[in-house]
């Protein structure tokens, strides 16, 4: 008896259903294989790219860009978000500015970034930074604003000053929300790295997809999409695991 009430059962069934549907339709000959490759063809493409080392190279190139851009964004968003959440003056100064820039679509910065920084790694990393920094900061600011004031006032009556209160009360309290913020905005980082690579790159998963388009290799496009999805899912699960381990009190 399969355990139908296991939390994963339905999820796995959903993925399996789509895979089966895909295999059925693509193998039936109803749709031109140029438009809808079969799962076998995608698997063959995966084996080819794996043995040539291309898949790993592309994935590592994209992961590195995401990692650098997001680390920069997350690292700066944390102190600035905390400062904005705990200090009215800083909040009033920065919140309108950030609220404005947040609504500028990050991909619209690509032309500027290319003019300023050329076609190397820096503009791609900065694109990810621009696309995630403002969301990260504002979400962390909100988390800080919702720290129960009793927790802060208790620390003050115990003799706590501003900095220890930030590091020993505010920071641990918001840790689960910060991790969740990072988890959510990490998805945007992945969107942006692919967009950046579609425009200009020599390697990366997005670059591979745009090259595949040029040669009508839909199997490679499918492969790229699936790999991007899988890496994203793994990162998401990683954040969840980190949260479970480090913030057990919040569960």
């Amino acid at each position, binding site marked *: 008896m399969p355990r139908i009430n296991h939390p994963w059962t339905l999820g796995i069934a959903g993925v399996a259903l789509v895979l089966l549907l895909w295999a059925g339709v693509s193998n039936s000959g109803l749709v031109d294989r140029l438009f809808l490759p079969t799962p076998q063809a995608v698997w063959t493409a995966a084996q080819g790219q794996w043995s040539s080392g291309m898949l790993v190279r592309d994935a590592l190139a994209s992961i590195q860009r995401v990692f650098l851009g997001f680390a920069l964004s997350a690292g700066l968003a944390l102190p600035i978000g905390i400062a904005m959440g705990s200090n009215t003056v800083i909040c009033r100064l920065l919140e309108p500015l950030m609220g404005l820039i947040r609504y500028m679509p990050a991909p619209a910065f690509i032309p500027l970034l290319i003019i300023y920084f050329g076609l190397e790694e820096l503009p791609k990393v900065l694109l990810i930074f621009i696309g995630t920094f403002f969301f990260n900061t504002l979400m962390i600011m909100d988390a800080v604003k919702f720290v*129960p004031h*009793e*927790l802060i*006032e*208790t*620390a*003050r*009556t*115990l*003799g*706590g000053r501003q900095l*220890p209160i930030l590091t*020993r*009360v505010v920071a*641990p*309290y918001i*840790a689960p929300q910060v991790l969740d913020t990072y988890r959510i905005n990490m998805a945007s980082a992945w969107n942006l790295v692919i967009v950046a690579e579609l425009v200009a790159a020599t390697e990366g998963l997005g670059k591979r997809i745009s090259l595949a388009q040029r040669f009508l290799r839909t199997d490679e496009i499918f492969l790229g999409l699936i790999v991007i999805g899988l890496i994203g899912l793994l990162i998401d699960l990683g954040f969840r695991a980190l949260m479970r381990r480090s*913030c057990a*009190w*919040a569960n």
Partner: protein
Amino acid sequence: MHLQVENVSKRFGHGTAAKLVLDQISFDLHSGEFLALVGSSGSGKSTLMRLIAGLERPSTGSIRIDGQPVRGPGSDRGMVFQKYSLYPWLTAAQNVAFGMSLQGRPRLEIRERTAYFLEVVGLADAARRLPRELSGGMQQRVAIARALAAEPRVLLLDEPFGALDIQIRETMQEFLHRLWSQTGLAALLITHDLEEALLLANRVHILAPSPGRIVRSVVVDHDRSAMGQLRVSPAFLALREELASCLRSLEPASGR
């Protein structure tokens, strides 16, 4: 220790929208005394507590401890809030140690004092549990231990048992009385529960609402050795009823 509250008034807002919350409050509190302030909502009693804790400033008047004016919060005044004041990510022991560690005390001393105060509040066995694994009464005992461990000169209790069930409240009241009589600390209790105030305090001030002001003060000196009997003794009940009718007469005449 001598806490002096002198002609303290507190106004919120400015100009015509200003609202007087506390009007000319004066009282003293010395070491070994247990003082209770009783009032309904709107009597400004929590505001008064926040002024003494240094979390807010009085509009006029002064608050002094041993002659030194209160300029902000400090560990000489240990505060116990009604609820939600334990750090949920810290164990009971770490919560008790928190204030001492903010004060930068040596590690060994912190460990010893933590163990001692957990023992005092009867929670030595719960040292490693997280707040969410403790009952409401246990959580408040941890909060009291945490305040005591920081060596305050006066303990400020802001409706400390207000969120607890009635049976647990009674146990906690007995616990607090024992604790106070053993430590000889100065304690200031804010409550809307007249029985609680009369059971615990040597002196009770009645606060009238809007604006908050002291309208009556009584010295309470009954024998507290058997609190369960005291609760139902005729003298106690008579005093309680007298003050209760005083409190009722202070309520603004509403349509009820």
